[in-house]
Protein backbone atom coordinates (compact mmCIF):
# COMPACT_ATOMS: atom_id res chain seq x y z
CA UNK A 1 0.00 0.00 0.00
CA UNK A 2 1.05 3.62 -0.56
CA UNK A 3 2.65 5.56 2.21
CA UNK A 4 0.41 8.46 3.22
CA UNK A 5 2.87 10.35 5.39
CA UNK A 6 6.62 9.98 5.60
CA UNK A 7 8.91 12.10 7.75
CA UNK A 8 12.70 12.05 7.87
CA UNK A 9 14.50 13.69 10.74
CA UNK A 10 11.62 16.10 11.21
CA UNK A 11 12.52 18.62 13.90
CA UNK A 12 10.63 21.62 15.24
CA UNK A 13 12.49 23.82 17.67
CA UNK A 14 10.39 26.53 19.29
CA UNK A 15 13.39 27.94 21.11
CA UNK A 16 12.68 26.99 24.69
CA UNK A 17 10.74 23.89 23.62
CA UNK A 18 11.81 21.15 21.25
CA UNK A 19 8.37 20.11 19.96
CA UNK A 20 9.63 17.45 17.55
CA UNK A 21 13.04 15.85 17.83
CA UNK A 22 14.31 14.27 14.61
CA UNK A 23 11.18 12.30 13.94
CA UNK A 24 11.32 9.44 11.43
CA UNK A 25 7.87 8.15 10.69
CA UNK A 26 5.90 6.27 8.08
CA UNK A 27 2.13 6.28 8.14
CA UNK A 28 0.11 4.11 5.78
CA UNK A 29 -3.55 4.14 4.76
CA UNK A 30 -6.32 3.26 7.18
CA UNK A 31 -6.81 4.82 10.58
CA UNK A 32 -3.71 5.84 12.47
CA UNK A 33 -3.95 6.91 16.06
CA UNK A 34 -1.45 9.51 17.21
CA UNK A 35 -1.05 9.14 20.93
CA UNK A 36 0.84 11.21 23.43
CA UNK A 37 0.44 13.37 26.48
CA UNK A 38 -0.37 17.06 26.05
CA UNK A 39 2.73 18.72 24.65
CA UNK A 40 4.06 15.51 23.11
CA UNK A 41 4.11 17.19 19.70
CA UNK A 42 0.90 15.80 18.16
CA UNK A 43 -0.67 19.09 17.10
CA UNK A 44 2.69 20.47 15.97
CA UNK A 45 3.18 17.43 13.74
CA UNK A 46 -0.25 17.90 12.14
CA UNK A 47 0.42 21.61 11.50
CA UNK A 48 3.79 20.86 9.93
CA UNK A 49 2.21 18.22 7.70
CA UNK A 50 -0.35 20.80 6.53
CA UNK A 51 2.48 23.20 5.74
CA UNK A 52 1.13 25.75 8.23
CA UNK A 53 4.17 25.68 10.47
CA UNK A 54 7.63 25.41 8.93
CA UNK A 55 9.83 22.63 10.28
CA UNK A 56 13.20 23.64 11.72
CA UNK A 57 14.90 20.82 9.86
CA UNK A 58 14.11 17.51 8.25
CA UNK A 59 11.80 16.53 5.43
CA UNK A 60 8.30 15.21 5.12
CA UNK A 61 5.94 14.15 2.37
CA UNK A 62 2.16 13.92 2.52
CA UNK A 63 0.43 11.85 -0.17
CA UNK A 64 3.68 12.02 -2.10
CA UNK A 65 3.94 15.83 -1.97
CA UNK A 66 6.78 17.64 -0.27
CA UNK A 67 5.52 19.81 2.61
CA UNK A 68 7.82 22.73 1.80
CA UNK A 69 7.39 22.96 -1.96
CA UNK A 70 3.88 21.63 -2.50
CA UNK A 71 1.89 22.97 0.45
CA UNK A 72 -1.13 24.08 -1.62
CA UNK A 73 -1.33 20.69 -3.37
CA UNK A 74 -1.30 18.96 0.03
CA UNK A 75 -3.91 21.29 1.47
CA UNK A 76 -6.18 20.64 -1.52
CA UNK A 77 -6.18 16.91 -0.75
CA UNK A 78 -6.20 16.95 3.04
CA UNK A 79 -9.05 17.70 5.44
CA UNK A 80 -8.29 19.20 8.84
CA UNK A 81 -10.31 19.25 12.03
CA UNK A 82 -8.47 21.56 14.44
CA UNK A 83 -8.44 21.02 18.16
CA UNK A 84 -9.89 24.40 19.06
CA UNK A 85 -13.22 25.98 18.30
CA UNK A 86 -13.28 27.16 14.69
CA UNK A 87 -16.89 27.84 13.72
CA UNK A 88 -18.47 31.29 13.17
CA UNK A 89 -21.62 31.44 15.35
CA UNK A 90 -23.84 33.42 12.97
CA UNK A 91 -23.64 31.04 9.99
CA UNK A 92 -25.54 27.79 9.51
CA UNK A 93 -23.63 24.51 9.19
CA UNK A 94 -25.08 24.11 5.73
CA UNK A 95 -23.87 27.50 4.41
CA UNK A 96 -20.54 27.12 6.16
CA UNK A 97 -19.82 23.68 4.72
CA UNK A 98 -20.70 24.90 1.22
CA UNK A 99 -18.36 27.88 1.66
CA UNK A 100 -15.52 25.72 2.97
CA UNK A 101 -15.94 23.24 0.12
CA UNK A 102 -15.62 26.17 -2.29
CA UNK A 103 -12.52 27.34 -0.43
CA UNK A 104 -11.07 23.92 -1.29
CA UNK A 105 -11.72 24.57 -4.96
CA UNK A 106 -15.09 22.97 -5.60
CA UNK A 107 -17.44 24.88 -7.94
CA UNK A 108 -20.59 26.21 -6.22
CA UNK A 109 -23.03 23.57 -7.46
CA UNK A 110 -20.71 20.70 -6.58
CA UNK A 111 -19.99 22.30 -3.20
CA UNK A 112 -23.72 22.37 -2.42
CA UNK A 113 -24.14 18.70 -3.28
CA UNK A 114 -21.07 17.65 -1.31
CA UNK A 115 -22.10 19.71 1.72
CA UNK A 116 -25.57 18.12 1.82
CA UNK A 117 -24.01 14.70 1.54
CA UNK A 118 -21.31 15.06 4.20
CA UNK A 119 -23.74 16.72 6.62
CA UNK A 120 -25.97 13.68 6.21
CA UNK A 121 -23.02 11.36 6.81
CA UNK A 122 -21.95 13.11 10.01
CA UNK A 123 -25.56 13.10 11.21
CA UNK A 124 -26.54 16.77 11.21
CA UNK A 125 -30.19 16.77 10.16
CA UNK A 126 -32.57 19.74 10.42
CA UNK A 127 -30.19 21.64 12.69
CA UNK A 128 -27.86 22.20 9.75
CA UNK A 129 -29.99 25.21 8.78
CA UNK A 130 -29.63 26.88 12.18
CA UNK A 131 -26.76 29.22 13.14
CA UNK A 132 -23.93 27.20 14.65
CA UNK A 133 -23.69 29.43 17.71
CA UNK A 134 -26.57 27.50 19.23
CA UNK A 135 -25.03 24.07 18.70
CA UNK A 136 -24.02 21.63 21.42
CA UNK A 137 -20.36 20.59 21.56
CA UNK A 138 -21.25 17.32 19.83
CA UNK A 139 -22.98 19.11 16.97
CA UNK A 140 -20.08 21.55 16.63
CA UNK A 141 -17.63 18.68 16.34
CA UNK A 142 -19.84 17.13 13.65
CA UNK A 143 -19.91 20.43 11.73
CA UNK A 144 -16.12 20.66 11.99
CA UNK A 145 -15.87 17.10 10.69
CA UNK A 146 -18.25 17.93 7.83
CA UNK A 147 -16.09 20.84 6.64
CA UNK A 148 -13.01 18.59 6.82
CA UNK A 149 -14.72 16.05 4.52
CA UNK A 150 -16.51 18.49 2.22
CA UNK A 151 -13.92 18.38 -0.58
CA UNK A 152 -13.51 14.58 -0.54
CA UNK A 153 -9.94 14.60 0.78
CA UNK A 154 -7.57 11.65 0.49
CA UNK A 155 -6.46 12.14 4.09
CA UNK A 156 -8.08 13.76 7.11
CA UNK A 157 -6.16 15.02 10.12
CA UNK A 158 -8.39 14.98 13.18
CA UNK A 159 -6.94 16.80 16.18
CA UNK A 160 -8.68 15.56 19.34
CA UNK A 161 -12.12 15.08 17.73
CA UNK A 162 -13.64 13.69 20.95
CA UNK A 163 -12.44 16.56 23.13
CA UNK A 164 -15.17 17.82 25.45
CA UNK A 165 -17.81 15.31 24.30
CA UNK A 166 -20.11 13.37 26.62
CA UNK A 167 -19.86 9.55 26.45
CA UNK A 168 -22.69 9.11 23.95
CA UNK A 169 -21.36 11.83 21.61
CA UNK A 170 -17.87 10.40 22.01
CA UNK A 171 -19.04 6.97 20.87
CA UNK A 172 -20.82 8.54 17.90
CA UNK A 173 -17.71 10.51 16.91
CA UNK A 174 -15.51 7.42 17.19
CA UNK A 175 -18.02 5.52 15.06
CA UNK A 176 -17.77 8.27 12.44
CA UNK A 177 -13.97 8.14 12.51
CA UNK A 178 -14.18 4.42 11.95
CA UNK A 179 -16.60 4.86 9.03
CA UNK A 180 -14.37 7.48 7.40
CA UNK A 181 -11.40 5.14 7.52
CA UNK A 182 -13.12 1.86 6.66
CA UNK A 183 -16.23 2.69 4.58
CA UNK A 184 -15.26 6.01 2.96
CA UNK A 185 -11.74 4.79 2.17
CA UNK A 186 -10.12 8.02 3.39
CA UNK A 187 -6.88 7.75 5.32
CA UNK A 188 -7.28 9.12 8.84
CA UNK A 189 -4.74 10.42 11.32
CA UNK A 190 -6.49 10.99 14.64
CA UNK A 191 -4.91 12.31 17.82
CA UNK A 192 -6.06 11.79 21.36
CA UNK A 193 -4.63 11.79 24.79
CA UNK A 194 -7.17 9.14 25.76
CA UNK A 195 -5.63 5.85 24.79
CA UNK A 196 -8.70 3.69 25.24
CA UNK A 197 -10.62 5.31 22.40
CA UNK A 198 -7.81 5.03 19.86
CA UNK A 199 -7.41 1.38 20.81
CA UNK A 200 -10.97 0.85 19.63
CA UNK A 201 -10.90 2.58 16.26
CA UNK A 202 -7.37 2.70 14.89
CA UNK A 203 -5.54 0.20 12.72
CA UNK A 204 -2.13 1.57 13.60
CA UNK A 205 -0.80 3.49 16.53
CA UNK A 206 2.01 6.01 16.74
CA UNK A 207 3.10 6.94 20.23
CA UNK A 208 4.90 10.27 20.66
CA UNK A 209 6.63 11.31 23.83
CA UNK A 210 8.43 14.62 24.19
CA UNK A 211 8.69 15.01 20.41
CA UNK A 212 10.26 11.62 19.82
CA UNK A 213 8.77 8.42 18.51
CA UNK A 214 8.16 5.99 21.32
CA UNK A 215 6.58 3.27 19.27
CA UNK A 216 4.74 2.78 15.98
CA UNK A 217 3.01 -0.48 15.13
CA UNK A 218 -0.29 -2.12 14.38
CA UNK A 219 -2.89 -1.65 17.09
CA UNK A 220 -3.32 -5.40 17.58
CA UNK A 221 0.40 -5.75 18.23
CA UNK A 222 0.03 -3.34 21.08
CA UNK A 223 -2.68 -5.53 22.42
CA UNK A 224 -1.10 -8.92 21.77
CA UNK A 225 -2.12 -11.70 24.12
CA UNK A 226 -0.54 -11.57 27.53
CA UNK A 227 -0.41 -15.35 27.84
CA UNK A 228 -3.16 -15.32 30.42
CA UNK A 229 -6.64 -16.84 30.23
CA UNK A 230 -9.62 -15.38 32.02
CA UNK A 231 -12.02 -17.93 33.52
CA UNK A 232 -15.44 -17.23 34.96
CA UNK A 233 -17.55 -19.95 36.57
CA UNK A 234 -21.00 -19.97 38.14
CA UNK A 235 -22.25 -22.10 41.04
CA UNK A 236 -22.08 -22.42 44.85
CA UNK A 237 -18.77 -21.01 46.02
CA UNK A 238 -17.65 -21.50 42.43
CA UNK A 239 -14.48 -19.47 42.47
CA UNK A 240 -12.83 -21.24 45.42
CA UNK A 241 -13.88 -24.72 44.31
CA UNK A 242 -12.65 -24.11 40.79
CA UNK A 243 -9.38 -22.75 42.06
CA UNK A 244 -8.87 -25.81 44.28
CA UNK A 245 -9.91 -28.15 41.49
CA UNK A 246 -7.37 -26.64 39.13
CA UNK A 247 -4.68 -26.73 41.84
CA UNK A 248 -5.25 -30.49 42.23
CA UNK A 249 -4.48 -30.85 38.51
CA UNK A 250 -1.31 -28.86 38.85
CA UNK A 251 -2.60 -25.51 37.48
CA UNK A 252 -2.31 -22.33 39.49
CA UNK A 253 -5.29 -20.00 39.29
CA UNK A 254 -5.21 -16.49 40.69
CA UNK A 255 -8.44 -14.66 41.51
CA UNK A 256 -8.97 -11.25 39.85
CA UNK A 257 -12.28 -9.74 40.92
CA UNK A 258 -14.97 -12.26 40.11
CA UNK A 259 -12.69 -13.95 37.59
CA UNK A 260 -9.84 -16.39 37.77
CA UNK A 261 -6.69 -15.92 35.72
CA UNK A 262 -4.79 -18.96 34.54
CA UNK A 263 -1.41 -18.99 32.81
CA UNK A 264 -1.92 -20.29 29.29
CA UNK A 265 1.25 -22.37 29.47
CA UNK A 266 0.42 -23.85 32.91
CA UNK A 267 -0.52 -27.37 31.85
CA UNK A 268 2.54 -29.53 31.30
CA UNK A 269 0.83 -31.82 28.81
CA UNK A 270 -2.39 -31.34 26.89
CA UNK A 271 -4.40 -28.21 26.24
CA UNK A 272 -5.13 -26.00 29.21
CA UNK A 273 -8.50 -25.05 27.67
CA UNK A 274 -9.63 -28.70 27.76
CA UNK A 275 -8.35 -29.06 31.28
CA UNK A 276 -10.33 -26.04 32.51
CA UNK A 277 -13.46 -27.29 30.76
CA UNK A 278 -13.10 -30.78 32.29
CA UNK A 279 -12.44 -29.39 35.75
CA UNK A 280 -15.56 -27.23 35.63
CA UNK A 281 -17.61 -30.13 34.30
CA UNK A 282 -16.34 -32.51 37.02
CA UNK A 283 -17.16 -30.01 39.73
CA UNK A 284 -20.63 -29.35 38.28
CA UNK A 285 -19.89 -25.66 37.75
CA UNK A 286 -21.19 -23.55 34.86
CA UNK A 287 -18.28 -22.32 32.73
CA UNK A 288 -19.41 -18.85 31.67
CA UNK A 289 -16.25 -17.43 30.19
CA UNK A 290 -12.92 -18.72 28.94
CA UNK A 291 -11.15 -15.89 27.20
CA UNK A 292 -7.70 -14.73 26.24
CA UNK A 293 -6.69 -11.70 28.29
CA UNK A 294 -5.66 -8.84 25.99
CA UNK A 295 -3.52 -6.04 27.20
CA UNK A 296 -4.78 -2.50 27.05
CA UNK A 297 -2.70 0.27 25.57
CA UNK A 298 -2.27 1.73 29.02
CA UNK A 299 -0.32 -1.41 29.97
CA UNK A 300 2.20 -0.66 27.21
CA UNK A 301 2.94 2.63 28.92
CA UNK A 302 3.03 1.01 32.33
CA UNK A 303 5.85 -1.23 31.02
CA UNK A 304 7.98 1.65 29.77
Amino acid at each position, binding site marked *: *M*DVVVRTQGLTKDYGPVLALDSLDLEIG*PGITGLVGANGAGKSTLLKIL*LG*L*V*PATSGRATV*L*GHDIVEQ*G*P*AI*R*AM*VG*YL*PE*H*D*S*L*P*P*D*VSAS*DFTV*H*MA*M*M*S*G*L*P*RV*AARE*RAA*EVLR*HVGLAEERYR*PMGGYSTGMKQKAKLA*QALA*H*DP*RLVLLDEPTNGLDPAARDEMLGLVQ*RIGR*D*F*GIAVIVTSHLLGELERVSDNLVVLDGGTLLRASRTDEFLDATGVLLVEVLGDDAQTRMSEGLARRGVTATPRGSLLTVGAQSAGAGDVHDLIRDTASDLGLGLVRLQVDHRRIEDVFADD
Partner: protein
Amino acid sequence: MTDPALSDPALPDPALPDPSTATPAGGSVIHDLGYRPYTGPRLAPPAIARSLVVTGLRNAFGLGRSGRSKVLPFVLLAFNLMPALIIGGVMVFVGLDRLPIGYAQYASTTQVLLGIFVASQAPVLFSRDLRHGTIALYLARPLPAAAYAVSRWASLLGATLVFLLSPILLLYAVSLLGELDVTDQTRDAGIAIGLAVLLAMSLAGVAGVIASWSTRRGFAVVATIAVLLIGNGIVTAIQGISQEVGKPLVGEVAELFSPYSLYRGLMSMWTGFDAPTPPTGVVMQTAYVVVFVALAGGCLATLVHRYRTVASA
Protein backbone atom coordinates in the same frame (compact mmCIF):
# COMPACT_ATOMS: atom_id res chain seq x y z
CA MET B 1 -3.63 6.49 -4.61
CA THR B 2 -5.89 4.89 -7.22
CA ASP B 3 -6.57 1.64 -5.44
CA PRO B 4 -10.07 0.66 -6.65
CA ALA B 5 -10.97 -0.62 -3.19
CA LEU B 6 -10.41 2.89 -1.86
CA SER B 7 -12.35 4.79 -4.48
CA ASP B 8 -15.32 2.45 -4.51
CA PRO B 9 -18.35 3.70 -2.62
CA ALA B 10 -19.10 1.82 0.54
CA LEU B 11 -20.97 -1.42 0.17
CA PRO B 12 -24.70 -0.97 0.75
CA ASP B 13 -26.04 -1.84 4.14
CA PRO B 14 -27.37 -5.44 3.90
CA ALA B 15 -30.47 -4.38 5.83
CA LEU B 16 -31.52 -2.17 2.94
CA PRO B 17 -33.34 -3.60 -0.06
CA ASP B 18 -31.29 -4.14 -3.16
CA PRO B 19 -31.70 -0.96 -5.24
CA SER B 20 -32.34 -2.91 -8.41
CA THR B 21 -35.32 -4.78 -6.96
CA ALA B 22 -36.74 -2.18 -4.62
CA THR B 23 -38.66 -0.19 -7.17
CA PRO B 24 -41.53 -2.35 -8.36
CA ALA B 25 -43.75 -0.58 -10.83
CA GLY B 26 -41.50 2.44 -10.83
CA GLY B 27 -42.18 3.34 -7.19
CA SER B 28 -39.51 5.61 -5.80
CA VAL B 29 -37.38 4.60 -2.84
CA ILE B 30 -34.69 6.63 -1.11
CA HIS B 31 -31.49 4.64 -0.93
CA ASP B 32 -28.49 5.11 1.24
CA LEU B 33 -25.91 5.38 -1.50
CA GLY B 34 -23.05 5.24 0.96
CA TYR B 35 -20.09 7.54 0.53
CA ARG B 36 -19.57 8.87 -2.96
CA PRO B 37 -16.16 10.26 -3.85
CA TYR B 38 -15.98 13.59 -5.70
CA THR B 39 -14.51 13.28 -9.16
CA GLY B 40 -15.43 16.68 -10.60
CA PRO B 41 -13.18 19.67 -11.26
CA ARG B 42 -11.17 21.43 -8.56
CA LEU B 43 -10.54 25.12 -9.14
CA ALA B 44 -7.14 26.78 -8.84
CA PRO B 45 -6.32 29.37 -6.15
CA PRO B 46 -7.24 32.44 -8.28
CA ALA B 47 -10.80 31.13 -8.70
CA ILE B 48 -10.95 30.27 -4.98
CA ALA B 49 -9.82 33.79 -4.11
CA ARG B 50 -12.51 35.27 -6.37
CA SER B 51 -15.17 33.22 -4.62
CA LEU B 52 -13.81 34.35 -1.22
CA VAL B 53 -14.01 37.99 -2.32
CA VAL B 54 -17.62 37.60 -3.46
CA THR B 55 -18.65 35.82 -0.24
CA GLY B 56 -16.88 38.49 1.82
CA LEU B 57 -18.64 41.26 -0.09
CA ARG B 58 -22.00 39.62 0.61
CA ASN B 59 -21.09 39.11 4.27
CA ALA B 60 -20.13 42.77 4.63
CA PHE B 61 -23.77 43.64 3.90
CA GLY B 62 -24.99 40.86 6.20
CA LEU B 63 -26.07 38.63 3.29
CA GLY B 64 -25.58 34.96 4.10
CA ARG B 65 -25.46 35.81 7.79
CA SER B 66 -28.13 36.23 10.43
CA GLY B 67 -31.06 38.61 9.81
CA ARG B 68 -29.87 40.97 12.51
CA SER B 69 -26.51 41.53 10.84
CA LYS B 70 -28.23 42.94 7.73
CA VAL B 71 -29.81 45.82 9.67
CA LEU B 72 -26.84 48.11 10.28
CA PRO B 73 -25.21 48.04 6.80
CA PHE B 74 -28.51 48.56 4.99
CA VAL B 75 -29.68 51.31 7.35
CA LEU B 76 -26.38 53.13 6.82
CA LEU B 77 -26.60 52.60 3.07
CA ALA B 78 -30.15 53.98 3.07
CA PHE B 79 -29.12 57.08 5.07
CA ASN B 80 -26.20 57.55 2.72
CA LEU B 81 -28.45 57.48 -0.32
CA MET B 82 -31.21 59.64 1.14
CA PRO B 83 -29.68 63.05 0.31
CA ALA B 84 -29.03 61.91 -3.26
CA LEU B 85 -32.63 60.73 -3.58
CA ILE B 86 -33.94 64.05 -2.27
CA ILE B 87 -31.68 65.99 -4.64
CA GLY B 88 -32.89 63.73 -7.42
CA GLY B 89 -36.51 64.51 -6.58
CA VAL B 90 -35.82 68.24 -6.47
CA MET B 91 -33.94 68.10 -9.76
CA VAL B 92 -36.76 66.24 -11.51
CA PHE B 93 -39.60 68.38 -10.18
CA VAL B 94 -38.00 71.81 -9.93
CA GLY B 95 -35.49 71.49 -12.74
CA LEU B 96 -32.25 73.12 -11.52
CA ASP B 97 -29.51 74.05 -13.96
CA ARG B 98 -26.76 72.50 -11.80
CA LEU B 99 -26.51 69.85 -9.06
CA PRO B 100 -26.79 71.46 -5.60
CA ILE B 101 -23.86 69.28 -4.41
CA GLY B 102 -20.78 68.15 -6.31
CA TYR B 103 -20.19 64.42 -6.92
CA ALA B 104 -16.90 64.40 -5.02
CA GLN B 105 -18.25 66.68 -2.29
CA TYR B 106 -20.97 64.13 -1.48
CA ALA B 107 -18.59 61.64 0.20
CA SER B 108 -17.05 64.45 2.23
CA THR B 109 -20.49 65.51 3.43
CA THR B 110 -21.49 61.97 4.43
CA GLN B 111 -18.09 61.06 5.83
CA VAL B 112 -19.47 60.18 9.28
CA LEU B 113 -21.83 57.58 7.79
CA LEU B 114 -19.00 56.26 5.66
CA GLY B 115 -16.70 56.03 8.68
CA ILE B 116 -19.30 54.15 10.72
CA PHE B 117 -19.96 51.77 7.83
CA VAL B 118 -16.31 50.90 7.27
CA ALA B 119 -15.59 50.68 11.02
CA SER B 120 -18.56 48.42 11.71
CA GLN B 121 -18.14 46.10 8.72
CA ALA B 122 -14.34 45.65 8.75
CA PRO B 123 -14.54 43.39 11.84
CA VAL B 124 -17.00 41.16 9.93
CA LEU B 125 -14.23 40.43 7.44
CA PHE B 126 -11.11 40.68 9.59
CA SER B 127 -11.95 40.00 13.27
CA ARG B 128 -14.53 37.24 12.94
CA ASP B 129 -12.24 34.55 11.52
CA LEU B 130 -9.53 35.33 14.07
CA ARG B 131 -11.90 35.51 17.00
CA HIS B 132 -13.71 32.26 16.25
CA GLY B 133 -10.63 30.38 15.07
CA THR B 134 -12.08 29.93 11.56
CA ILE B 135 -8.78 31.24 10.20
CA ALA B 136 -7.30 27.78 10.95
CA LEU B 137 -9.77 26.23 8.50
CA TYR B 138 -8.97 28.79 5.78
CA LEU B 139 -5.24 28.36 6.19
CA ALA B 140 -5.58 24.56 6.01
CA ARG B 141 -6.90 25.06 2.48
CA PRO B 142 -5.06 25.78 -0.79
CA LEU B 143 -5.26 29.60 -0.61
CA PRO B 144 -2.02 31.05 0.88
CA ALA B 145 -2.27 33.42 3.87
CA ALA B 146 -1.27 36.41 1.72
CA ALA B 147 -4.02 35.69 -0.81
CA TYR B 148 -6.49 35.36 2.03
CA ALA B 149 -5.47 38.80 3.38
CA VAL B 150 -5.70 40.46 -0.04
CA SER B 151 -9.09 38.82 -0.72
CA ARG B 152 -10.48 40.10 2.57
CA TRP B 153 -9.20 43.59 1.79
CA ALA B 154 -10.73 43.39 -1.67
CA SER B 155 -14.10 42.46 -0.15
CA LEU B 156 -14.02 45.47 2.16
CA LEU B 157 -12.86 47.67 -0.72
CA GLY B 158 -15.79 46.44 -2.79
CA ALA B 159 -18.28 47.07 0.01
CA THR B 160 -16.87 50.56 0.59
CA LEU B 161 -17.08 51.31 -3.13
CA VAL B 162 -20.72 50.21 -3.24
CA PHE B 163 -21.28 52.67 -0.40
CA LEU B 164 -19.33 55.50 -2.06
CA LEU B 165 -20.29 55.01 -5.70
CA SER B 166 -24.03 54.39 -5.44
CA PRO B 167 -24.90 58.05 -4.60
CA ILE B 168 -22.49 59.28 -7.30
CA LEU B 169 -24.15 57.09 -9.90
CA LEU B 170 -27.59 58.13 -8.67
CA LEU B 171 -26.69 61.83 -8.95
CA TYR B 172 -25.16 61.24 -12.38
CA ALA B 173 -28.35 59.56 -13.61
CA VAL B 174 -30.43 62.42 -12.21
CA SER B 175 -28.21 65.03 -13.87
CA LEU B 176 -28.63 63.29 -17.22
CA LEU B 177 -32.39 63.12 -16.72
CA GLY B 178 -32.32 66.84 -15.87
CA GLU B 179 -30.58 67.43 -19.23
CA LEU B 180 -27.45 68.99 -17.76
CA ASP B 181 -24.34 69.13 -19.94
CA VAL B 182 -23.25 65.53 -20.47
CA THR B 183 -19.54 66.31 -20.98
CA ASP B 184 -19.24 68.38 -17.81
CA GLN B 185 -21.20 65.89 -15.72
CA THR B 186 -19.25 62.89 -17.01
CA ARG B 187 -15.92 64.61 -16.29
CA ASP B 188 -16.97 65.60 -12.76
CA ALA B 189 -18.43 62.16 -12.01
CA GLY B 190 -15.25 60.55 -13.36
CA ILE B 191 -13.06 62.61 -11.04
CA ALA B 192 -15.34 61.73 -8.13
CA ILE B 193 -15.10 58.03 -8.94
CA GLY B 194 -11.30 58.23 -9.06
CA LEU B 195 -11.22 60.01 -5.71
CA ALA B 196 -13.70 57.49 -4.29
CA VAL B 197 -11.46 54.58 -5.32
CA LEU B 198 -8.45 56.21 -3.64
CA LEU B 199 -10.45 56.91 -0.48
CA ALA B 200 -11.99 53.41 -0.39
CA MET B 201 -8.56 51.76 -0.81
CA SER B 202 -7.07 53.53 2.17
CA LEU B 203 -10.20 53.34 4.34
CA ALA B 204 -10.40 49.57 3.74
CA GLY B 205 -6.69 49.33 4.58
CA VAL B 206 -6.84 51.36 7.80
CA ALA B 207 -10.03 49.67 9.04
CA GLY B 208 -8.72 46.24 8.03
CA VAL B 209 -5.44 46.64 9.90
CA ILE B 210 -7.21 47.79 13.06
CA ALA B 211 -9.81 44.99 12.85
CA SER B 212 -7.16 42.33 12.22
CA TRP B 213 -5.28 43.36 15.35
CA SER B 214 -8.36 43.33 17.52
CA THR B 215 -10.32 40.14 17.91
CA ARG B 216 -12.99 42.09 19.80
CA ARG B 217 -15.51 43.63 17.45
CA GLY B 218 -16.47 46.49 19.76
CA PHE B 219 -12.89 47.59 20.24
CA ALA B 220 -12.20 47.48 16.52
CA VAL B 221 -15.28 49.60 15.75
CA VAL B 222 -14.44 52.23 18.36
CA ALA B 223 -10.74 52.35 17.43
CA THR B 224 -11.49 52.71 13.71
CA ILE B 225 -14.02 55.48 14.25
CA ALA B 226 -11.57 57.23 16.55
CA VAL B 227 -8.73 57.03 14.03
CA LEU B 228 -10.87 58.13 11.07
CA LEU B 229 -13.19 60.75 12.54
CA ILE B 230 -11.17 62.10 15.47
CA GLY B 231 -8.03 62.06 13.33
CA ASN B 232 -9.90 64.07 10.72
CA GLY B 233 -11.16 66.45 13.39
CA ILE B 234 -7.63 67.12 14.65
CA VAL B 235 -6.39 67.71 11.11
CA THR B 236 -9.27 70.09 10.41
CA ALA B 237 -8.49 72.03 13.59
CA ILE B 238 -4.82 72.35 12.66
CA GLN B 239 -5.80 73.50 9.17
CA GLY B 240 -8.13 76.14 10.57
CA ILE B 241 -5.52 77.49 12.97
CA SER B 242 -2.76 77.50 10.38
CA GLN B 243 -4.97 79.46 8.01
CA GLU B 244 -5.86 81.97 10.74
CA VAL B 245 -2.23 82.59 11.68
CA GLY B 246 -1.22 82.70 8.01
CA LYS B 247 0.96 79.61 7.88
CA PRO B 248 -0.97 77.44 5.40
CA LEU B 249 1.97 75.07 4.85
CA VAL B 250 1.46 73.60 8.33
CA GLY B 251 -2.13 72.85 7.41
CA GLU B 252 -1.10 71.37 4.08
CA VAL B 253 1.33 68.99 5.82
CA ALA B 254 -1.22 68.12 8.52
CA GLU B 255 -3.66 67.19 5.79
CA LEU B 256 -1.42 64.29 4.80
CA PHE B 257 -2.25 62.46 8.04
CA SER B 258 -5.88 61.45 7.55
CA PRO B 259 -7.62 59.72 4.62
CA TYR B 260 -10.51 62.15 4.78
CA SER B 261 -8.28 65.25 4.67
CA LEU B 262 -6.22 63.76 1.83
CA TYR B 263 -9.50 63.28 0.01
CA ARG B 264 -10.50 66.90 0.68
CA GLY B 265 -7.12 68.19 -0.44
CA LEU B 266 -7.21 66.29 -3.72
CA MET B 267 -10.85 67.26 -4.22
CA SER B 268 -10.08 70.99 -3.87
CA MET B 269 -7.15 70.49 -6.24
CA TRP B 270 -9.09 68.64 -8.94
CA THR B 271 -12.60 70.09 -8.71
CA GLY B 272 -11.94 73.62 -7.49
CA PHE B 273 -13.89 72.90 -4.31
CA ASP B 274 -13.21 75.61 -1.75
CA ALA B 275 -11.38 74.00 1.20
CA PRO B 276 -9.00 75.47 3.79
CA THR B 277 -5.26 75.11 3.01
CA PRO B 278 -5.47 73.24 -0.29
CA PRO B 279 -2.17 71.69 -1.45
CA THR B 280 -0.14 74.25 -3.39
CA GLY B 281 2.74 73.52 -5.70
CA VAL B 282 3.47 70.42 -7.76
CA VAL B 283 5.57 68.79 -4.99
CA MET B 284 2.81 69.04 -2.41
CA GLN B 285 0.15 67.94 -4.87
CA THR B 286 2.20 64.91 -5.93
CA ALA B 287 2.86 64.11 -2.28
CA TYR B 288 -0.89 63.95 -1.64
CA VAL B 289 -1.42 61.34 -4.35
CA VAL B 290 1.69 59.37 -3.33
CA VAL B 291 0.75 59.36 0.36
CA PHE B 292 -2.83 58.35 -0.44
CA VAL B 293 -1.69 55.37 -2.51
CA ALA B 294 1.14 54.51 -0.12
CA LEU B 295 -1.27 54.50 2.82
CA ALA B 296 -3.41 51.88 1.08
CA GLY B 297 -0.33 49.89 0.01
CA GLY B 298 1.22 50.03 3.46
CA CYS B 299 -1.98 48.86 5.12
CA LEU B 300 -2.28 46.01 2.63
CA ALA B 301 1.32 44.92 3.30
CA THR B 302 0.63 45.04 7.04
CA LEU B 303 -2.43 42.84 6.55
CA VAL B 304 -0.44 40.31 4.52
CA HIS B 305 2.25 40.27 7.20
CA ARG B 306 -0.36 39.90 9.93
CA TYR B 307 -1.99 36.83 8.39
CA ARG B 308 1.35 35.26 7.51
CA THR B 309 2.22 35.53 11.21
CA VAL B 310 -1.11 34.00 12.19
CA ALA B 311 -0.53 31.13 9.76
CA SER B 312 2.74 30.06 11.34
CA ALA B 313 1.67 30.63 14.94
